[in-house]
């Protein structure tokens, strides 16, 4: 995975947020590298990747952004289950969409959801962990791409 490949996931994120509300702009800030892969906001959807690449794709967000998205989707639930479900589904969508570029050998797992920083998911070590800040409706979430 190199710098150019990250664009695939950014394209997916733009597509996702545009589908929620085309009138709102998703601001994608410059990606940066993080030493250690781990959840770092309140809710994190984690997709394990195998096959053509190995590692994980994550979407991590706070309650406030997840509530905003649920509201835009006209989903009236505001409970923990809805937030966990949503963050997992966003991670699933962004990683699944990457097959447009990487093909069907880019195999993805069902979502694992972490609340807080605790997770049983085993992130691969010694790879570059790209973090992409995503700002939407004045709130920031992060896309974390940790792939060999």
């Amino acid at each position, binding site marked *: 995975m190199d710098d150019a490949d990250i664009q695939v996931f950014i394209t997916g994120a733009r*597509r*996702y947020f545009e*589908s*929620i509300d085309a009138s709102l702009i998703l601001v994608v800030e410059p990606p940066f590298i993080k030493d250690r892969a781990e959840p770092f906001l309140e809710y994190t959807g984690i997709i394990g990747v195998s096959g053509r690449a190995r590692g994980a794709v994550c979407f991590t967000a706070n309650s406030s952004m997840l509530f905003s998205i*649920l509201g835009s*989707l*006209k*989903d009236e*639930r505001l409970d923990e*289950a*809805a937030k966990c*479900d*949503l963050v*997992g*589904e966003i991670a*699933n*969508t*962004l*990683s*699944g*969409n*990457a*097959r*447009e570029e990487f*093909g*069907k050998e880019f195999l*993805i*797992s*069902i979502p694992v959801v972490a609340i807080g920083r605790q997770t049983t998911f085993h992130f691969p070590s010694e790879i570059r962990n790209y973090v992409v800040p995503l700002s939407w409706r004045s709130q920031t979430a992060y896309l974390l791409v940790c792939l060999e």
Partner: protein
Amino acid sequence: MKLLIVDDSSVVRRAIERDLESGGIIEVDQAENGEEALRLYAEKVHEVVTLDITMPKMDGLTCLDRIMEINPAARVLIISALRDRATAIDAIKRGASGFLCKPISPDELRESFQLLIND
């Protein structure tokens, strides 16, 4: 019309139901994996099924195969995040009537649904 919505995300299931609720549907069932979907489908043989692919217990393509065994004329619309041509072609060859890539807009969903039920 009976509709079966299959997706492991309740957010997606609820969104699909809301988007299609004015489409002449009289009964909606939801399932969160392929196993549950098959049990419901065997009981009621829904006119239309929307089916995710990446799900726990039984994935959507395996579920599609089983549905087509039960009813070779089943109308199944795949709604998946897997945005690659090979997977879409595979699903159509197995008997799916259509393939939509997530994320989908309500208009896109309603249009595909109408095409399906008018077919």
